[in-house]
């Protein structure tokens, strides 16, 4: 159990963590990335759809291929990627990890970048624990990575981008989509995804929610009902649907345990998924030398996660004296500009404002 000291340790090999590692390694920092999974790439390796947005941010490329590009670049820069290695604790700058889930090792990095992503939310209704009810991410993992169909007739709960995309991808993999249930009176996700679903003839029931799921040892039917503008059920509107699978696509929250163990401070920002670590615009938390990037710093998208990772990697390298001040400022401004552009439109503006509030919190706590 020797205490090694890489200059930068990144926890999480998803888009944010890999981008952070690449950026820091480009500035000649020694970088190690650890991840609990057996494959690098985070959620990207489950994403068979093409990204859109600006060309700078991998538009037109499928998520799975972005992951490959990032891993290749990191390996090329001699980043050490340790997989199947969960971090189990952080004590006073010492990071404890279970190498291949067997041997405990400790590392004391000079800088720590936490990019642990998000956890999916669930909603509860009678029958929600029956086999066949699962998160959208679970379905995506099993269908797109393990190549096993999770069900023949699927009800999706939630019409955000995740719900719309999982419906499309399950259909691609041969499942029938009974329909999408959305509690709000309007579709949550982007029009481009929703119209694909509509073109396939998949119904989207707005102002509806799941009343209960029935079954013996697995899901057999799903009862949905309409709700009014106060989200109260309207009696007599029940519909019983024959289905064997329910996918919950009802949002995500930052996976912040390790930031807590590192001593971070938190604020509540519902638009970013709830409890979010306080950080400044270059992604440093209130603990000096500890950075966050990607969904753990507020749930957004892979493209913003990549740029936040670049910022964190740059900031860590700069604080280690690896980057001159003018070079740091030039790149920082370019990344901040990129984030401004990615956070546009009605949803983007909300997130932009939430991020500004978080930066203000940081300034107040650091005074």
């Amino acid at each position, binding site marked *: 159990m020797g205490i090694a000291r890489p200059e930068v340790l990144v926890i999480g090999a998803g888009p944010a963590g890999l981008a952070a590692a690449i950026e820091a390694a480009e500035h000649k920092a020694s970088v190690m990335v650890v991840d609990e999974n057996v494959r690098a790439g985070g959620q990207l390796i489950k994403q*068979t759809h093409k990204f859109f947005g600006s060309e700078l941010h991998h538009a037109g490329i499928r998520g*799975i291929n972005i992951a490959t590009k990032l891993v290749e670049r990191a390996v090329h820069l001699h980043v050490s990627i340790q997989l199947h290695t969960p971090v189990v604790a952080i004590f006073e700058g010492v990071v404890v990890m279970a190498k291949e889930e067997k041997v405990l090792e400790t590392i004391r990095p000079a800088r720590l970048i936490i990019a642990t992503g998000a956890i999916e939310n669930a909603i509860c209704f009678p029958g929600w624990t029956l086999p066949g009810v*699962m998160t959208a991410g679970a379905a995506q*993992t099993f269908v797109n990575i393990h190549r096993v169909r999770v069900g023949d007739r699927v009800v999706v709960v939630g019409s955000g981008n995740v719900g719309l995309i999982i419906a499309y991808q399950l259909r691609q993999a041969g499942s029938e989509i009974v329909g999408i249930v959305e509690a709000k009176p309007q579709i949550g996700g982007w029009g481009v995804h929703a119209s694909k679903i509509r073109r396939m003839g998949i119904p989207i029931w707005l102002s509806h929610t799941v009343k209960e799921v029935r079954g013996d040892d697995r899901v057999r039917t799903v009862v949905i009902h309409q709700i009014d503008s106060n989200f109260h059920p309207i009696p007599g509107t029940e519909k019983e649907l024959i289905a064997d699978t329910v996918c919950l696509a009802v949002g995500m929250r930052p996976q912040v345990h390790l930031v807590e163990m590192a001593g971070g401070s938190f604020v509540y920002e519902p638009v970013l998924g709830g409890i979010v670590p306080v950080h400044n615009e270059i992604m440093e938390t209130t603990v000096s030398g500890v950075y966050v990037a990607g969904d753990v710093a507020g749930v957004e998208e892979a493209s913003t996660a990549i740029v936040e990772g670049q910022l964190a990697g740059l900031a860590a390298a700069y604080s280690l004296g690896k980057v001159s001040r003018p070079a740091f400022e030039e790149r920082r401004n370019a990344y901040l500009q990129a984030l401004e552009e990615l956070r546009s439109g009605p949803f983007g503006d909300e997130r932009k404002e939430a991020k500004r509030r978080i930066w203000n919190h940081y300034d107040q706590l650091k005074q």
Partner: protein
Amino acid sequence: MKSEDTDRRIYEHPILGPLKDGKKCVIIVDGKPIEAREGEPILAAMLAAGIVVARQTEKRHEPRGLFCGIGLCSDCLVTVNGVRNVRSCVTLVEDGMRVETQAPEAAQWG
């Protein structure tokens, strides 16, 4: 074993292409041999064979199966080679592995 009814593998995929001919192995689930593919988690092999219940809960004996798929929720715990509470969604198969869908440990709860 590869009947239309029980084999739930996605052999053809419009984006991902055909399923690669990975190395196959056999695991024993509740005494019954099922086909598995090296590199996949236990639960993937179970679901491919149509086994959706991974365990019964300790107190109420309710069925549980795949829920989070990333090793966080503990719904899919199984017994592997006599070791209880193994997360079947993230533990990879090994040839000859003995898996039991998990029954409650009655003594613990009285």
